């Protein structure tokens, strides 16, 4: 260790790290000494009165929790949703400023380990009524049918216990309900009975450049399906929603409700049908009865502890908080798969400088798509990837330049002066599970005195080969489009697979209907149940699984 005295002298108010000693912690608590700063909470919500046993509790109100909440409420069940974050008023509260919007992310610290540590926070997490959909890019392509059987096709990874046809009706229903703007017909995959309910959003500069470059290298492109409205749209339970104004701030929160996040779609529908939404409610414990069934959930809201009895629990906290809750409560662990099979989509980006004015912050960020690289003929890897044009906000971009190009000083300022001439393109690729990639609980405690999750991720040979193929492809496209000073930024996005579904409790946590093998009244629905990562963005499939999980549950109780 370095000279401790010098280190201590550097501190004006030396602050203790999280207290590990339970006795000391107790003593401090008894004397009412705060251990760590609480995460600031917005707008305290009224404390609910104690209630009777409810039919269903849903933990987490993102793409996994919100659709099933609405479905269960529509079926007349008494449902309560516990969401760790606040309920926002985007029109009034959301600024067009990246730093001011930091509250959209799960900012409690997660530890990123392994050879390719996963950036969390704004890259990969969410909190608030709406979850990560509050800041998702709204890019909503469907998987192609063979995404769901990569093991049968390549002998690696895992097959889904579901087929594309099991999910297709849900994709159609969701695209129609939340309002997805996209091309009809869609150029890749099986023919569809119905098209997208709205025309695609207008192409921004990056999308136009990708059209130009891809044409020259012989790659087909199409305006992408995006869950943002290209025209006014009538939303059941909400009323008219306004069209997208091309702010380009999807990843920092949509302020006019044009982006189809859960807070403007399934959540109002759930509320209309009687769902009880409890924001700022952080779950600390899950109780079981003598038969091993879940009987109640303990949570804190506004500093007060509550206990709510339930007949069924739907755990939809995302692929970090869901396995964390299972591990902390020693719940549904018999398969040994909780926390394992952690996957993350290769999201390699390629940036370039163009002579034209690009102004990359305007328009829907992912305007264009190509799935020609879904199963490349010259691939030396399993699976494949999609190509996407990308817009970007300045602060996010500057951070990536700092991390990716290691620029600083005058060269960094000089490069950033070209911001209005910069455009990007990226991939979203499949990822294979690997024994060295997993989530565990660390010994370090967070602000709530719970063990921080540690995520181990090291990209393997298949990911490396896919990235190499994709990097060459994207550099070719960007050079053909006229870019200079082309550089790539390695990144992985979306944490997937930490409580996977399967046919047997020997190697999976939940069955094909989302029900835990170990606990009959526990259902899990979010990206943690994905058996494989898919070569498309996960949100649409999470929503589809959510509705299907609700339907299968309702069938089972009728």
């Amino acid at each position, binding site marked *: 260790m370095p000279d401790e005295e010098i280190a201590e002298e550097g501190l004006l108010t030396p602050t203790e790290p999280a207290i590990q000693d339970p006795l000391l912690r107790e003593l401090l608590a008894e004397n009412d000494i705060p251990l760590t700063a609480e995460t600031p909470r917005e707008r305290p919500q009224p404390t609910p009165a104690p209630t009777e046993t409810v039919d269903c509790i849903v933990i987490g109100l993102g793409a996994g929790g919100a659709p099933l909440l609405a479905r269960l409420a529509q079926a007349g069940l008494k449902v309560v949703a516990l969401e760790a974050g606040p309920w926002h008023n985007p029109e009034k509260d959301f600024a067009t*400023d990246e730093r001011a919007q930091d509250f959209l992310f799960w900012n409690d*610290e997660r530890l990123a380990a392994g050879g390719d540590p996963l950036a969390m926070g704004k890259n990969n997490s969410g909190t608030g009524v709406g979850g990560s959909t509050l800041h998702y890019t709204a890019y909503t392509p469907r998987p192609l049918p063979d995404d769901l059987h990569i093991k049968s096709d390549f002998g690696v990874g895992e097959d889904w216990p579901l087929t594309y046809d099991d999910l297709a009706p849900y994709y159609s229903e969701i695209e129609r309900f939340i309002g997805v703007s996209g091309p009809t017909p869609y150029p890749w995959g099986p023919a569809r009975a119905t098209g997208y309910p709205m025309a695609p959003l207008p192409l921004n500069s990056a999308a136009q450049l990708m059209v130009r470059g891809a044409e020259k290298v012989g790659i087909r492109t199409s305006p992408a399906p995006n869950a943002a409205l290209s025209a006014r749209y009538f939303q059941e339970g909400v009323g008219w929603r306004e069209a997208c*104004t091309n702010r380009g701030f999807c990843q920092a929160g949509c302020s006019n409700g044009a982006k189809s996040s859960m807070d403007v779609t399934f959540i109002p529908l759930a509320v209309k049908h009687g769902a009880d939404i409890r924001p700022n409610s952080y779950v600390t414990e899950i109780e079981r009865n003598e038969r091993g069934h879940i009987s109640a959930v303990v949570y804190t809201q506004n500093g007060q502890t509550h206990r709510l009895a339930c007949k069924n629990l739907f755990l939809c906290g995302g692929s970090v908080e869901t396995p964390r809750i299972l591990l902390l409560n020693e719940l549904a662990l018999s398969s040994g798969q909780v926390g394992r099979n952690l996957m993350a989509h290769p999201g390699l980006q390629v940036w370039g400088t163009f002579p034209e004015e690009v102004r990359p912050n305007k328009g829907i960020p992912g305007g264009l798509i190509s799935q020609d690289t879904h199963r490349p003929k010259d691939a030396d890897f399993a699976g494949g990837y999609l190509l996407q044009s990308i817009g970007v906000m300045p602060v996010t971009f500057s*951070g990536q330049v700092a991390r990716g190009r290691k620029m600083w000083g005058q060269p960094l*300022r000089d490069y950033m002066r*070209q911001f*209005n001439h910069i455009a990007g393109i990226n991939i979203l690729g499949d990822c294979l599970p690997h024994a060295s990639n997993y989530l565990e609980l660390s010994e370090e405690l967070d602000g709530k005195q719970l063990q921080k999750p540690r995520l181990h991720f090291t990209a393997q040979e298949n990911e490396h080969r896919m990235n190499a193929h994709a990097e060459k492809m994207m550099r070719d496209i960007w050079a053909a489009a006229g870019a200079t000073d082309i550089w790539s930024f390695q990144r992985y996005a979306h944490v997937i697979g930490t409580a996977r579904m399967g046919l047997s409790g020997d190697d999976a946590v939940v069955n094909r209907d989302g029900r835990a093998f170990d606990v009959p009244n526990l259902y899990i629905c979010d990206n943690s149940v994905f058996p494989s990562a898919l070569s498309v963005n996960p949100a649409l499939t999470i929503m589809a699984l959510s509705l299907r999980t609700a339907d299968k549950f309702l069938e089972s109780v009728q």
Partner: protein
Amino acid sequence: MTSQDLLPSAHVSAATRAALTQRLAETGAAYTPQFLAPETFRLLEAVAARLFPQPERPVPIPLAPSVDQRLAEGRADGWRYDALPPDREAYRLGLGGIQEIAQALFQADFEQLETGQQDDVIKALASGTPPGAVWQELPADRFFEEMLAEITEIYYAHPWAQDEIGYTGYADLPAWTKIGLNEKEPRESPVE
């Protein structure tokens, strides 16, 4: 147009204006460090001044105060490299380590060095294998990346830095209609 023209205009929402005017109001104001000791804070300021040299500005965009404030409040950004200790520990170790590099290379404190020498110290840090006992414990490349990214994001969140790169995205009311190549709204053009 620049932030000076745009911020008071109807193109900026109330929430956006509040965030940006607050940032401007803090610019140039005296800041008393809340977490770092005064001499350590001055060291951080000196390092930040090399990461973002601003010779043209009589009042520079403040960079170190946001870092100190965050550390004082114990705020995190949702993750950290497992190889690094908690942020407060990482900054106090890392800044001590920068002083060690300065001593090893030039036998003087960082703040006493010529700017060229200061840049050499930062280059040594950025190389990932700088001299000094601290760096046997603290991975230099990860620490440098984290510090640089944080300070860079603070810099480009400031309206003056956004003016510098010609960014006007905060002035997004009522909408952007010209979003293609070489298209811009009147409010995106420089004032004649």
